[in-house]
């Protein structure tokens, strides 16, 4: 008897507490907002911003070359060698070149595919195409890169197809790496272009042709300006993903290095975390510049 009434009191107290919290939250929208945002903001602040800051701070440290232990401090040595050592500028330009090449390959491949999907294909064919473009994303990145390793190899499909006509497989080289990266990032480029093409009303194409514009003029003067933000959005993916890649180049890139490999080597081979951090800031800065340049096109709204 006593215990059951005790439980009732406790339940009442609980109900009152829950009730009070809910009333307080209801009457104070600002508090409600703060509580809602606190979790994602903590996440963003701790995991994202703090990691970047740690990267920046570490770049000023040095390493005891024999024992490999970190020596905290403030030294501009790492940044100085970034600018004075020819190795870093060569590799930076190679990486930017690779990112541009992959982006161009992907945009050129994605444009006709996206146009066909958005404007020509029947709804049924469109569904099948979307699925087949998304399908490769289900397979692991490593599996795909290793698959290309065998495609590009001395006894692979490329060699088998091209040798009868006097050509040869590009082998494990920068070209091989560009092809592989182009394949890996293609879905990320097709999708935003497809999305922006879908928004282009077919009426506009008809109006353009009614007013006497040929196909090419319509594409160039009507379609292209409208889907430019989509193209730029796609290029952000292919460009940034290539800038940071070091695994594909390791698997199919032969004896070549990109910025990612220098970071990897400085962590794994040289055990020089500060130098790795300094190098890692290079693609961050390049991407920052790229993003602020494309912000004006409205591409960021299309991501």
């Amino acid at each position, binding site marked *: 008897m006593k215990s059951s009434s005790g439980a009732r009191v406790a339940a009442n107290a609980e109900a009152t507490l829950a009730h009070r919290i809910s009333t307080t939250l209801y009457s104070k929208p600002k508090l409600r907002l703060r509580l809602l945002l606190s979790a994602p903001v903590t996440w963003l602040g701790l995991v994202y911003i703090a*990691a970047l800051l*740690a*990267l920046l*701070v*570490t770049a000023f*440290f040095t390493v005891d*070359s*024999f*024992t*490999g*232990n*970190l020596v*905290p401090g403030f030294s501009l040595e790492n940044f100085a060698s970034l600018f004075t*050592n020819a*190795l870093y500028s*060569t*590799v930076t330009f190679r990486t930017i070149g690779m990112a541009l090449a992959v982006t161009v390959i992907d945009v050129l491949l994605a444009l006709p595919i996206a146009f066909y999907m958005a404007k020509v294909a029947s709804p049924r064919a469109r569904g099948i195409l979307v699925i087949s473009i998304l399908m490769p994303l289900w397979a692991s990145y*490593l599996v795909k890169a290793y698959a290309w*390793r*065998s495609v590009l*190899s*001395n*006894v*692979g499909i490329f060699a088998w197809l091209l040798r009868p006509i006097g050509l040869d497989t590009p*082998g*494990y080289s920068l070209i091989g790496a560009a092809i592989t990266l182009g394949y890996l990032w293609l879905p990320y480029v097709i999708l935003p272009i497809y999305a922006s093409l879908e928004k282009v009303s077919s009426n506009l194409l008809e109006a353009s042709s009614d007013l006497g514009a040929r196909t090419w003029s319509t594409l160039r003067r009507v379609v292209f300006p409208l889907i430019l933000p989509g193209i730029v959005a796609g290029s952000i993916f292919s460009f940034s993903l290539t800038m940071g890649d070091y*695994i594909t180049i390791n*698997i199919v890139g*032969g*004896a070549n*290095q990109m910025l990612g490999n*220098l970071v*990897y*080597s400085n*962590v*794994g*081979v*040289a*055990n*020089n*975390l500060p130098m*790795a951090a300094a190098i890692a800031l290079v693609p961050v800065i390049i991407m920052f510049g790229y993003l602020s340049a494309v912000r004006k096109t409205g591409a960021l709204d299309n991501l």
Partner: protein
Amino acid sequence: MRITATVKLLALGSAAVLALSGCTSSNNGGNMLQSLGDNEKTVSLLGWPGYAEDGTTDPAYDWVTPFETATGCDVTFKSYGTSDEAITLFKTGDYDAIAASGDATLRLIAGGDVQPLNTELIPNYAGVYDFLKNRDFNTVDGMTYGVPHGYGANLLMYNTKVVTPAPTSWSVVFDGASKYKGKVTAYDSPIYIADAALYLMKHKTELGITNPYALDATQLAAAVDLLKAQKANVGEYWSDYLKSIQSFTTGDSVVGTTWQVIKNYTPAEANVEAILPSEGATGWSDSWMVSSKAKSPNCAYAWLNYIDSPEANAAATEYFGEAPATPDACAFGSKDFCATYNAGDVEFEKQIWYWTTPIEKCLDGRTDVKCTDYAAWTQAWLEIKG
């Protein structure tokens, strides 16, 4: 590969946190164990591929399970591709013991990452070859830090169908490499500079190299030039031994440096042969060491004792393709095991230049010049790869 990358990221993160909080690891390396206690339940090992097989790769090769049954220590094993990777991984403190080559051992000792060993607690240590004991790569200031695992040479592997006549010298990957342009392979680590230095030591005597790990600035520059010339002919560098096996199998690589274990794994139809060239070779002599932060020191000691037992040592070293650490192992391997790897042959052993960490104080005894240290080699290696 993913896993390694993640581990490295974690290492990067934890190192940054450590640095931010102002902690530095101590340099005394912990104290020597005086007696052994009860075995813990688990032991975490780090080593070269194939150093602790539990039958997963091939059910015929399993020397970990008998150890687990006998001691009750569950083994987790992680393999690495280069000594540098080993050091980075070991510094996370997640491992109780490591099998490290001479280019890693001294750095681990100096970094306070390993503890001095009480060899009296490792009965099988008594049976180890005397010429492997008290060497500069496992003993510092009279303290033993590592018990030998085995030793061997970095060999020259070639495709017998493509590379003719059969090479007898490393010149096939240096001065004569252009003949196999795009199909030459080399080991992807700064320590590979020593291979070039060994070649120069025999072929360009005017440089005055007497030890491939003691290079002054001029000698290092000569080795770097040789490697930069070689790079034009290199198809790819390898540190992942599986990648090397694959390129030799498909014919994307036809000649280059290798380990006996890679030769053993490469299918017979790939027509590869591995030799010790006339110049001699670089090589390794590996030691098992116990972490100064070991969570399971008793199990780690048990493993060190076990791996130097004749039976386990024979299994492990024959599987990898190297000479065992103890003469008693010869009886447990296959018939020609010890003859194949010239175990105990002191003349052969003298032809191997064991991996060791280059330091400023010249290892060949010169005092009039400063030698280039490993940091300089690392920088040079990144520049060679370009």
